[in-house]
């Protein structure tokens, strides 16, 4: 059996390892086009803080791990996929056959149509190469403008603050991380950032970036403001890497449309991670989640099915955890709530504390919090296990911080006589 995996991110690596476990004799190869060994984008902020060097971003020990697992890692770009011949063509012209193919090509940052984003002072923050450029230009005392206060934008804030730059964040939405947090939580992040000395402009967009004196650029804002900057970072979203599938006839939308086995419209081709548009646990719809836990879950589920040992899964839960200059926030599932559902929340703006739970009937379907780091994973447990909360729903309505208590009480024998 020949398993070919395109993409060396978390989805690809987990898939390769899972395949090896399920099928000890199979041929397994990962093909990735970045020059580094498989690494994690999640670790880039910590590379920028200089908590870790480049090797600290690697998904696995590049020297020993893949060899020990008998997984071939090929550093090449894939130019073409031929589902009919069941092979792929690499940039060097060679072809590789497959029995099962996993598309785990991830996504790429997209830039809004703003004039001047091609200037050398403008970078996205996606690859290690981007990180090196940012590290070079984000010197202490220099002015930096970050376009986009989404997830990616927020996780690199701390790194930029620690490098001592004067930072301004521009977000077109009415709050920070609008796709992950509600108004109250996003508002807390904004006031927190401002307290850390970061300029935050929400409901504001960048109109243009133009070259100015020295190495500086001028950033013109929709609110009439003008900012001078040595570095402009764009973090305005990502898009699935689908180009490779042009002409294959595989069904795509925002990503590769996959079923509950992570299988595309071609039975031998699977997709996982940011490139996959798989079933969302909460909605049952096919959605691109582009988050680390989904990438690894996708990778595992796809691999098990590629090896013929998998079941249909019930969809992956959308969830995020974000550290914004030390303020930790997270959200799960339908954090914005459902029609006719109940919700509970506690909000303490003075102390940057927030928790919001969303119920559909007796079950928890979504949650978000700010300022909490303990036991937050249990929100996933409560949602994914679809526990009927019974009495505990009322207790959570009264005090939503009792999430762990609710989970334990609903899943354990407490020793009642």
């Amino acid at each position: 059996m020949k398993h070919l995996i395109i993409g060396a991110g978390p989805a690809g690596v987990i898939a390769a390892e899972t395949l090896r476990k399920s099928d000890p004799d199979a041929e397994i190869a990962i093909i990735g086009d970045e020059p580094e060994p498989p690494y994690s984008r999640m670790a880039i902020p910590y590379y920028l803080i200089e908590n870790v060097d480049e090797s600290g971003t690697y998904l696995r020990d590049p020297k020993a791990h893949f060899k020990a697992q008998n997984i071939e890692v090929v550093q090449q770009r894939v130019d073409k996929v031929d589902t009919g011949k069941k092979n792929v063509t690499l940039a060097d012209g060679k072809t590789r056959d497959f029995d099962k193919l996993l598309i785990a090509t991830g996504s790429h940052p997209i830039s809004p149509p703003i004039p001047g984003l091609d200037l050398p002072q403008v970078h996205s923050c996606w690859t290690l190469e981007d990180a090196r450029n940012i590290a070079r230009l984000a010197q202490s005392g220099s002015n930096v403008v970050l376009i986009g206060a989404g997830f990616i934008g927020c996780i690199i804030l701390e790194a930029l603050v620690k490098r001592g730059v004067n930072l301004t964040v521009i977000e077109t939405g009415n709050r920070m991380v609008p796709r992950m947090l509600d108004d109250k939580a996003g508002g807390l992040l904004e006031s927190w950032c401002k307290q850390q000395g970061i300029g935050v402009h929400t409901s504001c967009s960048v109109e243009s970036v133009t070259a100015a004196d020295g190495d500086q650029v001028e950033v013109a804002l929709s609110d009439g403001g003008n900012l001078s900057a040595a570095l402009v970072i764009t973090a305005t979203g990502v898009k699935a890497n689908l180009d490779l599938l042009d002409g294959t006839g595989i069904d795509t939308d925002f990503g590769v449309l996959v079923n509950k086995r992570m299988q595309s419209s071609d039975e031998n081709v699977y997709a996982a991670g940011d490139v996959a548009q798989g079933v969302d646990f909460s909605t049952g719809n096919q959605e691109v989640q582009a988050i680390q836990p989904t990438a690894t879950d996708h990778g595992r589920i796809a691999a098990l099915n590629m090896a013929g040992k998998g079941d249909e899964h019930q969809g992956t839960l959308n969830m995020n955890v974000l550290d914004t200059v030390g303020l930790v926030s997270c959200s799960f599932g339908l954090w914005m709530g459902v029609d006719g559902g109940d919700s509970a929340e506690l909000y303490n703006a003075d102390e940057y504390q927030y928790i919001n739970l969303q119920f559909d009937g007796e079950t928890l379907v979504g949650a978000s919090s700010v300022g909490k780091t303990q036991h937050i994973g249990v929100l996933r447990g409560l949602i994914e296990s679809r526990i009927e909360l019974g009495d505990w729903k009322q207790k959570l309505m009264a005090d939503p911080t009792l999430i762990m208590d609710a989970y334990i009480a609903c899943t354990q024998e407490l020793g009642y006589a």
Partner: protein
Amino acid sequence: MQKSLHIDPGKCTGCLQCEMACSYEHTGTFNPSRSFIKVFTFHDEGRFAPYTCTQCDEAWCMRACPVDAISIDASTGAKVVSDDKCVGCKVCTIACPFGTINYAQTTGKVVKCDLCGGDPQCAAACPTDAITYIDADWTGYDRMMASAAKSLPSAETTAG
């Protein structure tokens, strides 16, 4: 046979000796806020439930880790965090559906039960045998974990 923690909430008196033993073992101080085992108090029910990582086979935390910082201790089966590798990204803390791997602001790393390398101090300190470390492949703790885990949809795919 590998041992596992067996927890009997019915025997717990809520004294927190386990939390102190855990924090003392891992930090050298008596500091329940840094304990990896936590006793939950159910006031109205008059019950106490110690709770910590079940070292589950799913190893959600380990799989979600983007930098390979969580590995299995071959001698105990514990999923162990390597402080050298953990960057503190917290992805594991939302991936673990049991809520038993947590971010420690003081160290900037995540922390979880490591079974103290095979001599869990919580069990040693427990005055009522509510926490024991026993040879058993089907302890009450496993049952507890299983009952919680079986309803988790994505766990089912590993059955094969």
